[in-house]
């Protein structure tokens, strides 16, 4: 049904979105937990987290290029010291995607943390559970439905990331060409509309199944939590 080129595009999209999720999730959980409490500087952190939503994606990609590009301050260091090159690579595409899906993750997970009953944490603390213990044994499992739903939504969104990825990682078939980038590429060629439609249908089906999957997962986990 799908051609070899289409399979490759799909595989690239999956790899980029998955890698982005793996990189983004731990920091997003930490950020969301922080934002669910009170601390000095909360307002600033909240703003920073939401920057990728507010800035044009192309600008986010451009900022990454300035910072991590071959002549960017961090980019030079990464290439000299660690031998890592991010621009125009699949890891680069994943990094740009990770930055873009970060606010989606933080928002979903933060709501889950905020909905938790603070009295349970008091109960745990008088049962000799310290702060880290409480985080791993209470906060994380209780927020699991929200974390999972956020992750699925972010993964689906990550498969469709365009502006930041094309700016930072370019449009290289087999390396950084994800579904939306492939649609863009075929549209640049005369007579590419039919191919673009096929890719668009794939993209649509993926996004929709992601949303439905998130909803079902969340329902299932809620039911398990409530017994």
């Amino acid at each position: 049904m799908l051609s070899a080129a289409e399979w490759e595009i799909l595989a690239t999209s999956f790899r980029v979105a998955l890698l982005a999720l793996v990189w983004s999730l731990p920091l997003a959980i930490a950020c969301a937990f922080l934002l669910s409490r009170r601390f000095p500087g909360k307002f600033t952190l909240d703003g920073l987290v939401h920057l990728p939503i507010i800035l044009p994606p192309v600008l986010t990609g451009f900022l990454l290029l300035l910072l991590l590009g071959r002549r960017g301050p961090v980019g030079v260091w990464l290439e000299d010291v660690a031998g890592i090159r991010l621009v125009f690579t699949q890891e680069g595409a994943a990094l740009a995607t990770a930055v873009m899906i970060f606010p989606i993750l933080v928002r979903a997970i933060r709501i889950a943390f905020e909905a938790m009953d603070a009295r349970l944490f008091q109960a745990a603390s008088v049962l000799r559970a310290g702060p880290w213990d409480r985080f791993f044994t209470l906060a994380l499992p209780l927020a699991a439905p929200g974390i999972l739903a956020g992750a699925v939504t972010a993964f689906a969104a990550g498969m469709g990331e365009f502006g930041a990825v094309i700016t930072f990682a370019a449009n290289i078939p087999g390396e950084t060409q994800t579904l939306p980038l492939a649609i863009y590429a075929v549209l640049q060629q005369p007579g590419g509309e039919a191919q673009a439609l096929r890719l668009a249908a794939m993209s649509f089906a993926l996004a929709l199944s992601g949303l439905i999957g998130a909803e079902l997962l969340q329902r299932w986990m809620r039911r398990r939590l409530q017994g």
Partner: protein
Amino acid sequence: MKTLDVHVRLTRGAFRLAAKFTAPGDGITVLFGPSGGGKSSLLAAIAGLVPSQGEIRLGKRMLSAQGTHLPPHKRGIGMVFQDARLFPHLTARRNIAYAWTRAPADKRPRLEEVARFFDIMALLDRPVGNLSGGEKSRVALARALAAAPDFLLLDEPFAALDGQRRRAFIKVLLEMHRSFHLPMLVVTHSIDDAASLASHLVALKAGEVVSSGPFDAATADPAFAALLDARDNGAAVSSLLLHTVHDKAQRYLWLRADQVVLAAERPKAISTRNILEGEILSIRQEADGGRMVALQTKAGRILSRVTAEAVDELALAQGRKAWALVKAHAF
């Protein structure tokens, strides 16, 4: 045997509390007083859940003092709340195991023993979401016990229960105290609950301790009587000194002055088993015109409220003999 020494000040908004008392390491101390007097805040401060100034000491260990404030998980103090606060993502068994695995290995009780004691073997593998209220509170008690605390604080744990179930819960607490030698500090605003549980009492009003000490002495303090509703006025009597249908263990009964009948001669042919001979200590006129008669008996001081006419007719007077009739199984 670790005594709990508390000498703290704490502020919550406009409310100020300053309390100094000692809860013995071998008894049940009841923290008694009207709502809004700061009982729950004081308990939270002892557990380390809210900040306080001053000193809190458990045995030789300083839990809180100038410069050292141990966090709740390092205090070795357990707490049972008004609501059970079971962890919803765990079964009853794993709720209890949560406490047990974090308790010092040399102090913690055996898990089967705890489960059998609270009669919860059958519900161990159920998620806590579908337990009944009474089952939840039993699991919460089991969990608190499994943490092997040095001292257990209970914040009106039976507030939601009524009648029969409340008395059953109090009985479980008493047995738990006896079987596991666990000292307790229990908050309540019911004088009957206080009397059933307490060996010692700390009475708190508007953020101040108005009386404290062994239950019978602390409740005989006039400052304590002022805390009570007029209809609750009375005296504590040891259950061992009365004929009761209760278990034989020592505890107190609260004899309301309204429920004690006075006779000027020893009554005959009467069903009442508790007829206490005594000497009248004082007769005081009450605001409503009634008379409060204090009687010294071998069971201790007893109060009886009678009418002015009865005092005249029976020729009751200070120093005279009288008999108090008490129907003790009414408790």
